[in-house]
C-alpha cells in the first residue's frame, strides 16, 4: 500500500491522457462565421479523436510542475562538455518574438520580407568574417545537418571534376558521432584516424591514409579533447595536397572565435552550431541551427537558399538565391530562422569588441579548472586546453571502484549538472568539462571544491557515490530495461 504522499508524487507524474475527463477543454474555440459546407463522405473521416481533455489551468500546473524536475542553465551550472551551455540572453528571445519576424510566412514574395532577408544576409556576412570563409548558407538546421550539407558539397565537387574514386573520409578517433554518421549519409566510407600521444593528429598515419580515393577529412578544431591541434597547418596541407576537402566541425568554435579563422588555416568548409557558440537556447534538445560555411572551392555548392544583396538605383534589394551548383535544399524552407534571429542578436550585441572576449574567457575558465583539479583526477593530455578540459576518472575507478558515472551523478547532489561522460571515446572514464565564459570565478571555485570533495568521498564512501543522485525526483534509471522492453507511448489500460 502506497502512502498518500507517495501517491501524490505519482499523481504529479500522471500523463495527459490519464488526466483527461470528458468534456473539459483547454482553450476557447472561434465560432464558424461562414455557411457550413457539405462534409466529406464518412469513409474519409475519423470516428474518434482520442486526445486529452483538460482545462487550461490543469495544463499550466502540470507542465509548470514537471518543468522543475529539469536542471537548466538558468538554474544550474551546466558544464556539459562539447555542448557550450552558456547563458542565453533574454534579449534574443524577445527579438525573435517580434511579430515581423515570428509571424512571417516562408513563401511570401521576397519583396515583402526584405527585413528578414537582410537579417539573414547580415548573419551570413558576419559568420563569413568570423570564420574567414567565402560564403555561407543558413539552411542547415543543426550541426549534423551542416555536416551533411558540407559533405554533400564535397561529394558534388569531386564528382563535378569527374573525380569519382574519392570515397574515403578520414575522421579522427575522437570525433563526435555525427561526423561518421554524416559521412555515411553522404555516401562516404569512414576511415578512422588515430591521434598521437599529445592528442594531435598523427601526421604519419595521416600521410599513410591519403590517396586518390581520399574525399576529405573531417576534423573538429579544437578537438573534442579540448585541444588545439598543433599540427593543423600540416594536416590541412596534406589533405589538400592529396586532392581532399578539409571539413571543419565548428562545434567548438567558442574556443577560438575572434582569435583564429578556419579559412586562414586551410579549411574548405565548416559548420557552426548556433545553439552552442551563438546562444540559441538548447530547448532540451533543439531547435538549433548549423550554418554551413564554405571557402572558395566549395562556395558554389552551398545548399539553397543563400541570401544575396544587390543595389538598384541606390536602394538595397535582398534576394534568396540558389548557388550556381547547389546541392539543393536541406529542408522545406530557409532554415531555422528563429534561431538565426537569436544568433544575429547575440553577435551584434557583442560586436567586434565582445566576440574575441568570448574565447578569451572560455579558455581561461577551462584552464583554471584544469590546473585546480589536476592531481585529483587523471588528466590524459597534460597540456594547455582550450574551452574544455577532459579528465578521466580512471584513478578513482582503479583505487575505489568509482566510475565517471558516479562522479557525474554525485555532482547532481551539489546542484551541478554533470559534465559529458564517456566521451570522447578515446578517453576511458572521460569527464569532459566545459565551463563556458558566462560562469563566474566563484562558480568555478565552487565546482572545483565539489570535484575535490567527490574525489575524497570516493575514497571514504564509494557506495554513497554509486547511489547518487540522492535528491532528485528519480534515482538512477534502468536504461537496459527501457531498451529491452520499449515502452514508448501512453496506451489505454484495458
Amino acid at each position: 500500500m502506497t502512502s498518500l504522499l507517495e501517491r501524490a508524487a505519482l499523481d504529479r507524474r500522471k500523463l495527459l491522457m490519464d488526466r483527461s475527463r470528458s468534456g473539459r477543454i483547454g482553450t476557447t474555440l472561434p465560432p464558424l462565421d461562414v455557411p457550413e459546407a457539405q462534409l466529406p463522405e464518412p469513409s474519409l473521416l475519423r470516428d474518434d479523436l482520442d486526445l486529452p481533455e483538460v482545462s487550461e489551468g490543469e495544463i499550466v500546473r502540470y507542465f509548470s510542475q514537471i518543468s522543475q524536475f529539469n536542471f537548466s542553465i538558468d538554474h544550474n551550472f551546466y558544464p556539459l562538455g562539447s555542448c557550450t551551455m552558456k547563458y542565453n540572453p533574454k534579449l534574443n528571445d524577445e527579438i525573435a518574438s517580434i511579430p515581423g519576424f515570428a509571424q512571417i510566412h516562408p513563401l511570401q514574395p521576397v519583396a515583402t520580407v526584405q527585413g528578414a532577408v537582410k537579417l539573414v544576409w547580415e548573419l551570413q556576412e558576419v559568420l563569413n568574417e568570423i570564420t574567414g570563409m567565402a560564403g555561407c548558407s543558413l539552411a542547415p538546421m543543426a550541426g549534423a545537418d551542416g555536416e551533411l550539407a558540407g559533405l554533400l558539397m564535397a561529394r558534388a565537387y569531386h564528382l563535378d571534376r569527374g573525380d569519382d574514386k574519392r570515397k574515403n573520409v578520414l575522421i579522427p578517433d575522437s570525433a563526435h558521432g555525427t561526423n561518421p554518421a554524416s559521412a555515411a549519409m553522404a555516401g562516404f566510407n569512414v576511415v578512422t584516424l588515430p591521434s598521437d600521444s599529445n592528442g594531435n593528429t598523427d601526421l604519419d598515419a595521416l600521410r599513410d591514409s591519403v590517396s586518390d580515393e581520399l574525399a576529405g577529412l573531417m576534423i573538429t578544431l579544437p578537438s573534442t579533447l579540448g585541444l588545439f591541434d598543433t599540427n593543423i597547418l600540416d594536416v590541412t596541407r596534406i589533405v589538400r595536397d592529396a586532392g581532399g576537402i578539409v571539413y571543419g566541425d565548428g562545434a567548438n568554435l567558442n574556443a577560438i572565435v575572434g582569435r583564429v579563422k578556419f579559412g586562414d588555416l586551410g579549411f574548405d568548409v565548416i559548420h557552426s552550431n548556433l545553439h552552442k557558440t551563438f546562444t540559441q537556447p538548447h530547448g532540451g534538445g533543439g531547435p538549433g541551427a548549423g550554418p554551413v560555411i564554405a571557402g572558395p572551392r566549395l562556395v558554389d555548392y552551398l545548399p539553397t537558399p543563400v541570401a544575396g544583396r544587390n543595389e538598384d538605383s541606390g536602394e538595397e534589394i535582398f534576394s534568396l538565391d540558389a548557388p550556381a551548383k547547389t546541392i539543393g535544399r536541406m529542408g522545406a524552407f530557409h532554415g531555422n530562422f528563429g534561431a538565426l534571429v537569436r544568433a544575429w542578436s547575440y553577435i551584434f550585441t557583442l560586436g567586434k569588441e565582445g566576440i574575441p572576449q568570448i574565447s578569451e574567457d572560455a579558455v581561461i575558465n577551462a584552464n583554471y579548472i584544469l590546473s585546480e583539479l589536476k592531481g585529483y583526477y587523471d588528466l590524459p593530455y597534460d597540456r594547455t586546453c582550450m574551452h574544455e578540459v577532459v579528465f578521466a576518472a580512471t584513478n578513482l575507478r582503479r583505487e575505489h571502484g568509482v566510475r565517471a558515472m558516479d562522479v557525474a551523478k554525485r555532482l547532481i547532489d551539489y546542484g551541478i549538472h554533470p559534465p559529458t561522460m564517456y566521451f570522447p571515446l578515446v578517453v576511458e572514464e572521460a569527464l569532459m568539462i566545459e565551463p563556458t565564459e558566462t560562469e563566474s570565478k566563484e562558480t568555478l571555485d565552487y565546482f572545483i571544491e565539489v570535484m575535490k570533495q567527490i574525489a575524497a568521498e570516493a575514497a571514504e564512501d564509494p557506495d554513497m557515490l554509486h547511489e547518487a543522485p540522492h535528491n532528485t525526483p528519480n534515482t538512477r534509471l534502468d536504461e537496459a530495461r527501457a531498451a529491452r522492453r520499449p515502452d514508448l507511448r501512453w496506451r489505454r489500460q484495458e
Partner: protein
Amino acid sequence: MASNEFQSPYVPNTDPDRRAMLDAIGVDSIEELFADIPDGYLNYDLDMPSARNELDLTRYARELAAMNRTPGDYACFLGAGSYRHHIPAVVRQVAGRSEYMTAYTPYQPEVSQGTLQTAFEFQSLICQLTGMDVANLGMYDGSTSLAEAALMASRLTRRHRAAVVESVSPLYREVLDTYVQAPGIEIDTIPASADSIPDETACVIVQQPNFYGYMEDVDRLAKLAHDAGALLIVSVDPVSLGMFRPPGEYGADIVVGEGQALGVPTTFGGPYVGLFACKQDYIRQMPGRIVGRTVDTRGEEAYVLTLQTREQHIRRERATSNICTAVALIALMSTIYLASFGRRGLRHVAELCYHKSHYAAGKIEEIPGYSVPMDGTFFQEFVVECPTSPSEINEKLLDHGIIGGADISAQVSNGMLVCVTEMNSRDEIDNLVTALTEIGELHK
C-alpha cells in the same frame, strides 16, 4: 588584460578575476593559453560593427521587422506546408519556461524528467493523432522526416527505389532529392492513379491531403505498395487529422508530417518539427531520439532516452541517421497545443478550416476569369487558376492588404494555391474575393 575595454553583460569575470585565474594556472597572459595556434594566425581584428546596446539593437531589429509585410497586419492566404493557426497564449508561456528552454538534450535523466516526460507525452499524442504504434521525438521539419522515412524504408526493405506520387509537395521532393543523392536511391514519380510500381520499390510516398490540398485515394495506394512488398509512407497535415481518417487506419507503415501547424508560428520557415511515426516492428530502424518509460532503482516509473544504439553517438557510421540536436522545444509546443485543443478542439479547428476554405473556393469559383479546376475533396487548400500570373495578382493584392496564395505556376498554369484557416475571417475572405474580382477585370 582582456583584449579590449568592453565589459560584456554576459561575462561575469573581470580583469582581477582573470588575473587570479591566470596566476593559478601559472601563465602570465591570456596569449600563452593560445600558444598552440600557429604563429601568424592569431587575428583579432574582426571587420564587423562595434558592440551595440540593447536599446539600439532592439530598435534596429524592429526596423528590420517593419520592412516585412506581416500576416496579421495583412490577411494571408499562404499555406503550402506552413500553416497559420491560432496559437493559445499558454503554448508560448509554458514552453517558454527557462527550465525547458535552457536545458540540453536529456542525457542525464535524473535531472531531465521535465523534458523527458513531456517528450513522452509528445510521442503519445502523435500516436493518438496518427493512429500509429510509435513516434519519435521529431525530426528537423516535415521534409526531412519524409526524406529520412525514404531512407528508412530502403534500409528495411533493402531496396533502392522510391515511388513518389506526383502530388507530393515539390519542396519536399527537393529535400528528398538532396537526401537520396548519395545513397543512390532512385526516385520514380507516379500518378496517384498508378496501378503498378517498379520492382524493387522500397516505398510509395503520398501526401494526404496532397500538395494541392486534396485527398488522395490512400487505400488504393496502400494496396499498391503492399502488394509490391513496398512500404507506404504518408505525409500528413496534423490538423487535417482532427477530422480525417488517420493513416494508421489505412495501412501506413511510416507517417511523417510537418508539426508546425500544431502551435508553432510560421517564423519564416523554422524552427518547425518533423513528425515521424511508424509501426511497432520498425522501431529499431527509426531515426531520431526516442524516449521510453522505465523504472528507477526504487521501482518508480520514469523516462529516459532509449534505443540509443540506433543513434550516431553510439553507432556512429552505422547509425540510422546523423541527427543529434533536433527540435525538442518545438515538440513541446505542439504537445501543449494538442493538450489545449484536445479531443473536441482539434476537430473544431479542422472543421473551421474545411468550411471556410470551401466557402472561399465557392466564392472564387464564381469570379469571372478564375476557376477552381481540381475535383475531389479538399481540406483547407485548393488551387485557383487565375486569369494572369499569380505573382502579378499577388503584387496587386498587397495594395488591398492581402498576401495572396502561393504561386504554383510551375505546377499549374497560372495556378495559385489558396489556403484558408480559422485565422481568415469571413471579412478577409470576402475582401479577397472582391480584390480578385477587381484585379481580374483588368485582365479581361
